[in-house]
């Protein structure tokens, strides 16, 4: 599948933003975060900026962005519509949460407990984003049980590493956030390794013969393409025909291992062992690393996905 930058940016930026929002809501409701409004402004501001930028940029992917309001209509059947509805609805608890923390400076009661709601809706939005891809049977590498867990845990991991970076100037001891970073990064790493192993070993369910209906017809169940319908790329080949060479994919996977998982884990360990400016630099660098790592991971998620329509254009099995 063609890796469109708007969609890559949408899923990674909103993922980090919603992951951060979920952790802020959760940890503040449990009274495990500093009450300092400066920290609140920085952390919540970053979260809402990432979410809003991601959502706005995603409309660049649309052919008719001025009609995007119509996408809220079909939440009964469409995961894309559900994502839109949940994304907008999440602003309500998120803004109430921000109001209580930053403006009214209330650190107890309903103003804090609304964090639970913000956390649940933030994660539900990430889940809806993942399900847009997970629900497409035409693209087997997306129609996979590890896709939704991967989106959720990588959202939490990027959110946690950013929370760790933003929290560092405000408090010396936040072992719980570091523990969440370790758990989410390790979990995300495990999910991605399992996912890549699974898609590499998967035998495509459909063949070129089944694509033209001859899969079960004796004597004709072996087919190979002869005359293409057109000699230059059409929409289908441009959108679904994107392929990435195996050697490049391997290199990018190694870069994902390094940037998204290994480097943030090591940098947070360095941060724990040091203090002052070194600690802050390590925490900030970890956040930058995990962000670039997840962007590369998401690029691969698109570029490595094969669409069944390619069976009509020379693919053997998908």
């Amino acid at each position, binding site marked *: 599948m063609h890796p469109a930058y708007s969609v890559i940016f949408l899923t990674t930026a909103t993922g980090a933003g919603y992951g951060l929002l979920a952790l802020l809501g959760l940890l503040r409701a449990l009274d495990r975060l500093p009450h300092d409004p400066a920290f609140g402004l920085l952390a919540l501001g970053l979260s809402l900026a990432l979410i809003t930028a991601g959502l706005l940029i995603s409309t660049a992917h649309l*052919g008719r962005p001025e009609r995007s309001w119509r996408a809220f*209509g079909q939440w009964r059947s469409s995961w894309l519509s559900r994502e839109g509805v949940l994304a907008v609805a999440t602003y309500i608890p998120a803004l109430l949460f921000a109001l209580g923390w930053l403006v009214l400076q209330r650190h107890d009661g309903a103003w804090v407990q609304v964090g639970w709601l913000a956390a649940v809706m933030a994660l539900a939005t990430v889940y809806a984003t993942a399900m847009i891809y997970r629900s497409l049977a035409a693209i087997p590498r997306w129609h996979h049980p590890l896709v939704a867990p991967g989106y959720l845990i990588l959202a939490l991991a990027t959110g946690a590493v950013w929370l760790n970076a933003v929290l560092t100037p405000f408090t010396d001891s936040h072992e719980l956030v570091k523990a969440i970073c370790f758990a989410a990064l390790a979990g995300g790493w495990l999910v991605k390794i399992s996912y890549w192993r699974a898609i590499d070993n998967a035998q495509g369910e459909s063949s070129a013969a089944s694509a033209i*209906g001859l899969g*079960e*017809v004796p004597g*004709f169940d072996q087919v190979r393409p002869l005359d293409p*319908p057109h000699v*230059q790329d059409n*929409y289908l080949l441009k959108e679904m025909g994107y392929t990435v060479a195996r050697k490049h994919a391997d290199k990018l996977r190694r870069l994902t291992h390094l940037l998204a998982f290994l480097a943030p884990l090591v940098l947070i360990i360095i941060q724990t062992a040091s203090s002052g400016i070194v600690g802050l630099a390590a925490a900030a660098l970890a956040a930058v690393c995990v962000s670039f790592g997840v962007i590369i991971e998401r690029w691969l998620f698109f570029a490595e996905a094969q669409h069944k329509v390619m069976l009509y254009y020379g693919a053997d099995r998908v």
Partner: protein
Amino acid sequence: MTSLPKVPTPKRLGLVIDLDTCVGCHACAVSCKEWNTAGYHAPLPDTDPYGKDVDGVWLNRVHGFETGLDSKTGGDGEKAGRTVYFPRSCLHCEDAPCVTVCPTGASYKRTEDGIVLVDEDICIGCKLCSWACPYGAREFDTDGGVMKKCTLCIDRIYNDNLEPEDRQPACVNACPARARHFGDFNDPESAVSKLTVERGGVELMPELGLKPTNRYLPPRQPAATGAVGRLDDAPTSGGFLDWIDRVLSR
């Protein structure tokens, strides 16, 4: 609504395409383009049509395949290879994934006859329907920013201004090999239903369970070699042929 019709549609309109007789002339594709660029989905734009990067929206594409490669029916250990031309267009599936993924309701399946359509006036051009379709039936119009697809020539089949014999899809009318047939699959007496039964009509990618309406008729099995009389075995029955045989055999 992008939910699929709750009850089975009273009619199931669709096509039967005969892979045995299709000669791959592309008349169906050209005729489709010609009608639809002025019809329901007007226009079907082309970008850079006379330049280096020709592209454009077509709702019907004809692929050529080689098949019969490992056939055991060829006799004498030979393979009965043959060319199969395969016209590809929307199959108007009963469980159409392109309909349920649509966030706006622009992509819908008609409750009366099962035709899957796009309402261009509310399509936001998110392209998700084209991702959801395993058959590549939908093509994006980069000029209009909306998705285009086969309408089963809805503006022909119900068009009272046309002669009754012309009230069928443009691709069916254009086919010189009579390889394309249009009708109601819910009517067991329709030509499409009968052809499907007689010739063992097949679904595309049945493993996905999308219940496509259109059916394809597989190529007929080749006749066994040796069934045709051979010239060197003329009977010695006397008469003219026998005389020729004797003269030529000298």
